[in-house]
């Protein structure tokens, strides 16, 4: 929570000496509140004020970055409880877990497809972020071996899981320290784990069964000079996960409660059952998780989760758009129908989905409507006869089709007259209002 100008003013010398370059301390305070200047401009601020002001300037939830070989995944730096208040910024990382008591072939069989997996969604390429390696053996050599096997296949960031500092050290030697996450520190081992995190430049997961326990540990570990932490409140069912995630986010944002100002790491995989794991993962995506560790990887379970992550973390003020252009649906020939619509992703995919799903060949001209849906764009003057005609020319539609007939969305029937004038000699047909009616329209009305 940012401090107001008045509150900041009270912490300044209030001498109006102008050394900072501003006429009064209040003016300087206002600039500080707006984060437009640095506190260092004032040579006279007390040490105490400096400390409290820098505390509040830091983001309420620590940004933790896992990185390896050019791959990065970040969580934290969130400022709202609800995406509609502004947006969620850093998509939760999705990781797949293997255990060191699994034979190497099994580990490879799990990691290789997950590593290679990527899927297209509205023109965006989606993939997983990394792997978690857990030590069940509690043996340093076995753990190191498992980490090595994973590293042979994947260069992505790793989460190493063991409560035994010796085992963790062996794992870190194979994984590399910087950019790796150590899971985890608890009441018994926090000093050693903090030491490891510090010396290797790794981030540290803190595990405790209560918020008080977490706060206590993060403060102690911060005292050792480790700042990059994530938290695991130890809950694994839908009700408790929601309660803790919400309460922790609320405390961090509304009360600026620093000891809980760190991203969360969650383990839907502990559910055992893949169906329940999906449900827990979906909740985690919607409700504040920073790092999500799955045990099951199948394309049919990961694809919807990747899409959900995109959806929830879309900036509500910036609609996703597709590239304007002439799209081919089901391999159309020159005599097949020409449709036109806007470049809002959902609009495009609703139309394309219906036509493709029905197996009908068609050309789809997608105009640049700044990512707005049909009616919205029309109301804003971004989807009209002039623009459609312009894009017909821009994308050389006439070179691709041998007819001169265009089908416009039903919601903008009103522009058909204008479009006749903009495209002389063309037949303007008014299509259905809803994409779902397109197949019937194409089959029966053309």
């Amino acid at each position, binding site marked *: 929570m940012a401090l107001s100008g008045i509150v900041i003013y009270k912490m300044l010398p209030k001498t109006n000496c102008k050394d900072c370059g501003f006429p009064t301390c209040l003016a300087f305070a206002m600039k500080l509140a707006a984060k437009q200047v640095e506190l260092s401009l004032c040579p006279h601020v007390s040490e105490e004020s400096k400390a409290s002001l820098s505390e509040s300037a830091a983001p309420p939830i620590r940004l933790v970055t896992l990185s390896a070989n050019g791959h990065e995944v970040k969580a934290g730096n969130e400022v709202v409880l609800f995406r*509609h208040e502004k947006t969620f910024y850093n998509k939760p990382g999705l990781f797949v877990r293997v255990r060191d008591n699994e034979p190497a072939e099994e580990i490879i069989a799990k990691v290789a497809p997950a590593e290679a997996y990527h899927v297209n969604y509205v023109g965006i390429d989606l993939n997983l972020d990394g792997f978690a390696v857990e030590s069940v053996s509690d043996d340093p050599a076995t753990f190191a071996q498992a980490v090595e096997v994973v590293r042979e296949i994947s260069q992505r960031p790793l989460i190493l899981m063991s409560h035994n500092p010796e085992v963790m050290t062996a794992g870190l030697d194979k994984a590399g320290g910087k950019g790796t996450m150590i899971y985890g520190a608890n009441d018994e081992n926090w000093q050693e784990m903090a030491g490891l995190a510090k010396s290797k430049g790794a981030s540290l997961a803190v595990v405790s069964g209560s918020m008080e*326990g977490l706060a206590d540990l993060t403060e102690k570990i911060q005292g050792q000079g480790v700042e990059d932490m994530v938290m695991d409140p130890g*809950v694994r069912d839908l*009700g408790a996960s929601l309660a803790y995630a919400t309460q922790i986010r609320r405390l961090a944002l509304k009360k600026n409660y620093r000891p809980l100002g760190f991203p969360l790491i969650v383990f839907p995989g502990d559910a055992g059952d893949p169906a*329940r794991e999906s*449900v827990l993962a*979906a909740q985690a995506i919607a409700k504040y998780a920073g790092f999500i560790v799955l045990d099951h990887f199948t*394309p049919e*379970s990961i694809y919807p989760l990747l899409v959900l992550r995109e959806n929830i973390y879309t900036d509500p003020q910036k609609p996703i758009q597709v590239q304007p252009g002439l799209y081919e649906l089901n391999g159309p020939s020159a005599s097949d129908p020409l449709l036109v619509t806007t470049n809002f992703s959902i609009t495009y*995919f609703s139309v394309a989905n219906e036509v493709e799903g029905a197996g009908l060949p068609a050309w789809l001209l997608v105009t640049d409507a700044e990512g707005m849906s049909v009616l919205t764009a029309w109301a804003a003057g971004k989807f009209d006869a002039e623009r459609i005609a312009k894009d017909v020319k821009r994308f050389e539609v006439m070179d691709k089709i041998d007819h001169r007939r265009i089908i416009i969305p039903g919601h903008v029937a009103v522009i058909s007259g204008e479009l006749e004038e903009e495209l002389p000699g063309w037949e303007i047909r008014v299509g259905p209002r809803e994409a779902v009616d397109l197949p019937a329209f194409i089959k029966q009305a053309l």
Partner: protein
Amino acid sequence: MNMPMNRIVMDPTTGALGYGIEYGYSAMERLRLAALQGDAMTQLPMLVTPGYEAWKTKESKVGQDVPGEWGDWLARAINWETLTAITLLESGADILVLRHPESLRRVKAAIDELMAVPELA
């Protein structure tokens, strides 16, 4: 029109996962917050139709000539409906209309888990 408030529900007309779910999701969060802050008109239960929306999608309807990354058709389709429903549940849905019995089973189990209020420590 003298229709009593306790016989009216709201359908915010949400889209499926991947097809606009976040618009409905945020509308529902705002409605719920307004309701909890005393706006009587928004204090009506919310009904959502993930069954209808999810089974309209290409991911659910089409099994042939789709990307290999989409995986097994039936499992994917059920996941699509279930995760659409679970997400809307998290944003405050009170009545969910589903289609596949397996989605129903999963969502019911989720609701039972959510209704068990934990002691926060």
